């Protein structure tokens, strides 16, 4: 099972994590892998904390990833990155969108939004790649393309080839949003070329 790649996509319901996991799933199938994608539907899609899991490799059993088992976590929001850090492998990579969305307990004053999350994440020794995906998405033409910007960053960190990703995007996003999403993907892909591959 060591050869299974475990990727988590975490964020806030409504941010488009589901689409991101579907693009990733389609790219992995195209490479001939066994794939499982575990999604969240229902209650938490209403602005709650959402997590989807994508696993691919020779043979995948559990569709869900346990603590300490994720090779990559793609976090759409800072607090969610923070919440799911414990799922990251010791040598895993956290790709993080710097956007912050206050949860209701913070809005009501019952809790406070943790300060300096990126610094704290860095201090744990985990590999952290931070990107302002919202600005990149706006530049590409649509705030909703945050998910595909992040997929672009992810793509540059995997051993799945670029054209396979591009095909997966074509297959997954509605045609009228294809161009925006292609630009968003490029923005993410070119943003962070450093670091190793999984």
């Amino acid at each position: 099972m060591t050869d299974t790649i475990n990727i988590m996509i975490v964020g806030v319901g409504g941010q488009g994590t589901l689409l991101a996991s579907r693009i990733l799933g389609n790219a992995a199938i195209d490479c001939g892998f066994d794939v499982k994608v575990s999604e969240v539907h229902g209650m938490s899609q209403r602005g709650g904390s959402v997590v989807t899991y994508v696993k691919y490799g020779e043979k995948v059993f559990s569709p869900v990833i346990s603590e300490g088992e994720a090779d990559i976590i793609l976090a759409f929001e800072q607090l969610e990155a923070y919440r799911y850090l414990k799922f990251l492998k010791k040598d895993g990579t956290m790709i993080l969108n710097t956007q912050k969305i206050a949860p209701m307990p913070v809005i009501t004053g019952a809790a406070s939004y943790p300060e300096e999350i990126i610094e704290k994440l860095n201090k744990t020794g985990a590999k952290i790649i931070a990107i302002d995906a919202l600005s990149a998405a706006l530049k590409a033409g649509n705030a909703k393309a945050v998910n595909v910007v992040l997929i672009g960053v992810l793509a540059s960190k995997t051993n799945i080839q670029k054209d396979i990703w591009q095909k997966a995007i074509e297959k997954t996003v509605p045609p009228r949003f294809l161009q925006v999403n292609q630009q968003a993907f490029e923005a993410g892909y070119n943003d962070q070329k450093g670091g190793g591959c999984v």
Partner: protein
Amino acid sequence: MKKLMLGNAAIARGAYEAGVTVVSSYPGTPSTEITQEIAKYDEIYSEWAPNEKVALEVAIGASFAGARSMSCMKHVGLNVAADPLYSVSYTGVGGGLVVCVADDPGIHSSQNEQDSRLVAISAKVPMLEPADSEECKQYVKQAFLLSEKYDTPILVRLSTRISHSQSLVEQGERVEKPLGDYEKNIAKNVMMPTMAVKRHIFVEKRLGDMKRFAEECELNTIEHKSEKVGVISAGIAYQYAKEAFPEASFLKLGMLNPLPTDLIKDFAKSVDTLYVIEELEPVIENHCKVIGVDVIGKQILPKTGEYNVGMIKKAVFGINADTHNIDEEAPGRPPVMCVGCPHRGTFYVLNKLGLTVSGDIGCYTLGALPPLSAMDMCVCMGASIGMAHGIEKARGDDFRKKTVAVIGDSTFLHSGITGLIDMVYNKGNSTVIILDNSITAMTGHQDNPATGYTIKGEPTKTVDLEKLCKAIGIENIVAADPFDLSGFEKVVKEQTAADGPSVIIAKRPCALLKGVVFSGALEITDNCKNCKMCLRLGCPAISTVDGRVVIDSSQCVGCNLCVKVCKFNAIEPITPLTKGMKL
């Protein structure tokens, strides 16, 4: 060709390939997408029924009429459909009859985490349980065959992680199943005492026959590996166990009712230590104990919540995951009503008036959470009205005047009407607010009898809620817009003060519906005194940054509720005015 498919889509595919022709369901997470996928196949008649009981009854009628039919629901939906289920177990079927039931271990989107295997046992109905999407497809096809061979309805049990995980599925062709003959047979199909007595004997014999099938069928398979450790498991728990015990021998059960006896005993003999890995109730474990097989199960693993690989490894081998840690806890992120949600207006008013709110199930249940905090109880679909009536009968008229029931349009039609009839008939005086957002929102926007469209999007008759309430005997019926905060408040005050039962129809469409347009994002101006009244709306677009109230323009659509609660005229459209923005 292999395709990545949700378990739910694979169930639909299996039913399609099996030649099913009639499907009737009521939505419920995590089962909903099965029927939504079915609706895409033109060869199949599909519908949303008003509730699960009706849905199953439609499927039973179709089965009696000779068709392969199916009904799909969530675990608690099976409670609603329990009445027909327990008796169709006696009558048996005409065409194959499959009931898909999706459990929710971990309670991702439900009011409890009951284990529907126990229903299968007590209704004496066989149950299959697939462990991935490919098995979803295969097992449904097999279920139709077994249903017809053994003259029984059959349950296919799913769970959140099976229903909502995608894995690879081989696509096959549909094989049409010609309609069977319709034969009148009252000894079999009319359940009155003389007939039912005999059918119960048949049911017991059928269970015996199916038990023999369970001993040999390919649904229950043994994978021999280690002689030291063996695992019995099924469904999603099998996938977790396979990763947690890579070296163990496995007995994977695909049929959960009835369970085999000899097969388990033989498997137990082949290993030194035997584990049972199953979420929720110790169904397999208790069976093992009854047949004298020693297993380790619930003494080390919980009956509550969902399992995962790490937790099994920890419980069995004492292995802790190696993780990065931060000491500070992350604040929770509970779900919230969307920006522009019509329910926000209603609950803001109910909170302001300090009423006791008898609640129900839907997006509006989120009104129970701070800061709206305007729901006191929520038990099951339809319960709000009966509970409000019970409150009145227990605590009298003064308390009643400070109480309302709230219920969504889909929930009202599901099982609220009978509660309202009870209230009128038994001289209750409570006020019921029907939250009519023109859709079944919580489960992802399904049409219902009040929306005017069928599952296929065809226009149809629309239930007129006002006329319906009138026909029941309600005389005080008022429609009100929950975004007109002061008008809505006035109506609630009047109706709760009045004698006699009353209904307020809070009418405004769900913000996520096509065609719902708002005026565009708002911003806080210099007039702001930071009084934070707007924060009481519980709008996810309004928060504070460095102690000052701000509106997140990337989230705000401009529903203008905050403008209405602001006493200082400090909220205005972003200038220059952006064009009408759609959510």
